[in-house]
């Protein structure tokens, strides 16, 4: 078993928290993990990405080779497309539909969606909106993780335990907010994918 996941977004959007949940869950299942992340200048509102590799065998490269990613999970739609050269033929794209616009030449978001929909396996959800409804836009990342959970070969139990562990020093309210976000994302993704198979 080997899974390659690219997480993408804009500096400050919380992709490292998603990575930390995946890593913790994978280690709890006694799997090997490598996770390459971006520190430094790009973190200032620039494009950031994170490569997470999970395997039952030793992992060598910290970077995922092009064309070998099984999933790109993005908290921003344009940042999702930036990494599509890494996606494999049967790979999944999961993204928030909410654009983060901090440049003058940000494309029309509908054109972005059109481009994403050219890939056969995709889930586009308004995770930011869902997170706000739950109570805090900060849990957008957990909504997206929930949406992608069925694609990630880690048990739901270990993912949930990882979320609890990661936020254990915070209040119970924050833990339950994050868990709720996860379940909400999972539910909505299920509805979408069911719909997709019906078509």
């Amino acid at each position, binding site marked *: 078993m080997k899974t390659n996941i690219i997480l993408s977004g804009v500096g400050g959007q919380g992709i490292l928290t998603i990575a930390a949940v995946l890593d913790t869950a994978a280690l709890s299942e006694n799997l090997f993990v490598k*996770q390459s992340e971006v520190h430094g200048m790009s973190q200032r509102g620039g494009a950031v990405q994170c490569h997470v590799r999970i395997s039952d065998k030793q992992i*060598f490269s910290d970077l995922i*080779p*092009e064309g070998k990613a099984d999933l790109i999970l993005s908290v921003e739609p344009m940042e999702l497309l930036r990494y599509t050269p890494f996606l494999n033929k049967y790979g999944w794209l999961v993204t928030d539909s909410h654009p983060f616009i901090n440049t003058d030449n940000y494309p029309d978001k509908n054109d972005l969606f059109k481009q994403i929909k050219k890939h056969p396996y995709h889930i586009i959800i308004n995770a930011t909106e869902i997170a706000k409804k739950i109570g805090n836009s900060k849990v957008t990342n957990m909504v997206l993780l929930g949406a992608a959970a069925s694609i990630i070969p880690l048990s739901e139990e270990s993912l949930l335990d990882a979320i609890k562990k990661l936020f254990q020093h915070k209040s119970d309210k924050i833990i339950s907010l994050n868990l709720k976000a996860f379940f909400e994302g999972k539910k909505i993704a299920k509805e979408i994918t069911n719909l997709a198979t019906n078509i």
Partner: protein
Amino acid sequence: MKSLLLGNEALAQGSIDAGLSGVYAYPGTPSTEITEYIQRSKLARELKIHATWSVNEKTAMESALGMSYTGLRALVVMKHVGLNVASDVFMNMSVSGINGGLVVVVADDPSMHSSQNEQDSRFYGKFAMIPILEPSNQQEAYDIMHYAFDLSEELKLPVLVRMVTRLSHSRAGIELRERRAQNVMQLPTDTSRFALLPMNARKQFDKLVNKKAILIKLSESSSLNDLKLSQHNDVGIIACGIAYNYVMENIGDDVSFYSILKISQYPLPKEKIKKLYKHCDKIIVVEEGYPLVEELLHDYFNKNDKIKGKLTGDIPLTGELNPNTVGKSLGIFQNISKSIPEIVSGRPPQLCEGCGHTDLFNTINELIPEIGNKNVFGDIGCYALGALPPLKTVNTLIDMGASITMAKGAADAGLENAIAVIGDSTFTHSGMTGLLDAVYENSPITVIISDNSAIAMTGAQESSAVGRLHKICLGIGVHPDHLKTMIPLNKNHEQNVELLRNELKYKGVSVIISERPCVRLSRDKKEEIKAKIASLS
């Protein structure tokens, strides 16, 4: 369960477990997390490991040498360009030798993710004639520190550990070992080797040169330099440090087809290389950084077609390696590279919303039509982003402190209205001496210290400049009438423009301290800084 650590954190934990007594460093991407990890470590606090930031890499390395002089184990950490700053002590302490184990960790930044160049620190190690260790993965980064400190004490030489961005900033599960006790103070039996007067230095330099044979012998027998010869003799691979991972990623289960020499300890094990060379029809050298090993191979065997690598164009000469470029050089099929959809536009880094630097640049930009658009000399830090659109205020960015001295040189040449923009921490790192040069000649320049009370770009570490800038400038000799303060806020814009306009009229050294804390500092931290400033004034 294994501990999930960044390469940098693994290395830091390895140092603690190897009996460390002090780490000395100035923040710099990609090296920062090593020192931060030790600062946060409960164990390190219990062991009273020194971990406060130094003012720059040179002071850091000298302090580490001082600790080593007393017999304790010391670590000094920096990014690659930091070693340029510390190169004076670096080159000389290999001559004096060390007492307690001294390990220099330098994190290189191939692809310049957060740097001005991609210099390869292995050349510095070779230049100083000391052993270099280059871990290939996180576990090795942890394990190698025990060996590095032992080796340093055994040879009485500093040891260079070379990291690269990708290993520094990638996590993996690490198995920890038992901790070695810290050294107790034991001053050197003979201190004369630390007094590098010519008569002592000559003796010491002879000793250093003569150690080379021992270093090579150690490299030959080191398990870090692992040679596996295949029954097939087509392709031999020399894989250095992290490059080994990209090689292994590509050859996967076909490992028996290739002869591989993994290099993680220098100077190079010449005999092992000769064996590989004899055994194989073709040698591919895969190394992160400059073609250091490849060049040496051409020296060993006379330049020939059998040796492939960066110099032959099989691997790109610039930028960091990745599994695809390495796979291609090995002739292993790579997926046809797809391009990023055209619709995707660039998203360069930018100053944070509400950042004080932006207001400062707006102030300067107001005067650009009067003074010209090529007069602003910049420096290293977040405010370097002022060179990019939409601000486009800053014209130069070379090295720590160069804003003041370049402005001075330009003013010497007759450029009017030369402005230097430098951060508070960059100023104390390397700006103070340049300011003295300018004061000494009363050069007509205006220095703006953009003081955000933090080393912001690397994660808002504490700046030693906090609360001291006024006194430092006065002490250096800036005239009190031309030492001004401004608060870079939009509501002060007109007033700030006037202040700058007036100081530009003055044909001597002016310093304007533009004071506003970094927006990334927490409220508590801001209060802490306020209290510190109050206590120092």
